[in-house]
């Protein structure tokens, strides 16, 4: 039983790292622009495709990774310049809807490019040997991808924190996130700050995309939809205000997701005699094993509850007065 639980926790830590890489990027952009960039998930998808095609073309892994990150950053910067900059200052919903449109363009563009390249809709991802297989730690079996996800996440996010707190660009981002007009008056170059935020977010999304594709073993143009929703939920849990918040939210979400799966198995796991047979039957009836598939619904319900009662995240904090 504890073995099972530990295994779940390990999976959660790995999933949490992926969510964190994405949530941080989302939170970064939101904090400065008040834009929820739903195309963020599609950046992950694009990264997966770039990596796959680079590897198919025979590039060694480091070169493929660089191509992937570079290409994704370019897409992210273009996205900002073409679709978001012209509507900066528009109502929130307009920007949200635009991000959906951008996502549609990326998805359909990838679909088209895939087809033109003679590929099927869903492509098997060439997971590098490094990430395949498992590693044994004590009585636990950890998949290599999980371990790498966790370590990569930790390293990148630490680097990012250092950058944001120590560098002038990072300081400008903080200022822009807190009070954009005031930051402007200091002489902060807003366009440059926004572009940098998009660049960083895209790079993080690229790494997340690579890890996600490695885990899933396949890529398709629509793979970005669920991750971005999860990333958004993570960011909301964390309060949408800070990097650390987004990270905490991400791991919290990953742990939260264990609950339906764990609950689902409870009726089976409980040792006989622990509860009365009648209660046992009741549990088995109410919590079918397929509860795990309710996971997404459960997570969203949680999101709605959070938005209602704790819009500033688990950590609470100052109520930010909504603009009328």
């Amino acid at each position, binding site marked *: 039983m504890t073995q099972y639980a530990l295994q779940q926790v390990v999976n959660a830590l790995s999933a949490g790292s992926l969510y964190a890489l994405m949530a941080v990027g989302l939170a970064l952009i939101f904090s400065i622009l008040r834009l929820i960039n739903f195309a963020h998930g599609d950046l992950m998808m694009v990264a997966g495709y770039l990596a796959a095609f680079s590897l198919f073309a025979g590039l060694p892994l480091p070169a493929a990774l660089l191509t992937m990150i570079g290409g994704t950053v370019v897409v992210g910067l273009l996205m900002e310049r073409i679709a978001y900059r012209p509507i900066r200052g528009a109502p929130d919903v307009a920007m949200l809807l635009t991000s959906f449109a951008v996502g549609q363009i990326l998805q359909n563009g990838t679909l088209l490019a895939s087809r033109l390249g003679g590929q099927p809709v869903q492509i098997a991802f060439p997971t590098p040997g490094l990430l395949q297989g498992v590693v044994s730690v004590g009585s636990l079996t950890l998949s290599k991808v999980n371990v790498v996800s966790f370590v990569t996440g930790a390293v990148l996010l630490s680097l990012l924190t250092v950058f944001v707190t120590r560098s002038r660009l990072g*300081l*400008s981002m903080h*200022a822009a996130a*807190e*009070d954009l007009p*005031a930051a402007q*008056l200091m*002489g*902060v170059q*807003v366009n440059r700050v926004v572009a940098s935020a998009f660049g960083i977010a895209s790079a993080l999304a690229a790494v997340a995309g690579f890890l996600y594709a490695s885990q899933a073993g396949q890529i398709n143009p629509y793979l970005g939809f669920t991750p971005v929703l999860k990333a958004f939920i993570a960011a909301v849990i964390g309060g949408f205000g800070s990097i650390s918040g987004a990270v905490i939210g991400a791991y919290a979400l990953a742990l939260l997701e264990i609950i339906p799966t764990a609950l689902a198995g409870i009726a089976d796991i409980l040792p006989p005699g622990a509860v009365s047979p009648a209660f046992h039957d009741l549990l088995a009836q109410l919590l079918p094993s397929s509860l795990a598939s309710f996971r997404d619904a459960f997570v969203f319900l949680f999101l709605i509850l959070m938005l209602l009662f704790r819009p500033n995240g688990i950590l609470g904090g100052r109520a930010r007065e909504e603009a009328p």
Partner: protein
Amino acid sequence: MLELDDLHVYYGNIRALDGVSLRVGSGELVALIGSNGAGKSTTLKTISGLIRPSQGTIRYEGNEITRHSTDRIVGLGISHCPEGRHIFGRLTVRENLILGGIQRPAAELEPGIDAVTEIFPRLRERLGQAGGTLSGGEQQMLAIARALMSEPRLLILDEPSLGLAPLMVERIFEVIDRLKGKGLTILLVEQNVHQALDVADRAYVMEAGRIALEGPAAELRHDPRVERSYLGH
């Protein structure tokens, strides 16, 4: 040094500035006074590039800067301390100051911080504190200090006495006087007409988006219209 010529600014369909022209000479302290909604802050924001005028020109040291971006205007030596202070509450005092000097080379930042904390010694004690924990008066000092970090040649101050206790207001105006003594050109918007006219060389009175009166501060102080509307005689 600064010339505004026939500025017109619209907020949607509402005309906020209706042909504003004014001048600030080098080394002068010019006050812009008027009631709420007259357009004083709008004028300042237009100078700083936060708002685009639909008509008119702004000239600084002979060059037209009407459609320059804010960061370029700061680079030219104009610094704007906004109404309501707008310090970054979640950042420390030191970080606020660094942001004020964001356009200066890294090496000049520490000496810059030293220089402004000399003018505002209270801030030196609080360098590591979060901006949001400072009192109203201290925040105003921080805002001015922050504006000074970019070593401006023209300082724009928007309602520095807003919401401050009388003792604090005195202090702030002492500082403003001191800065003027150092040769800094200042454009001051103020509700506290008394203090403003005391410290200014010249002044403009704005009403409904236009300049209604102008002249040397000493004269305006005794102008019956100013006395009635703003000085409460």
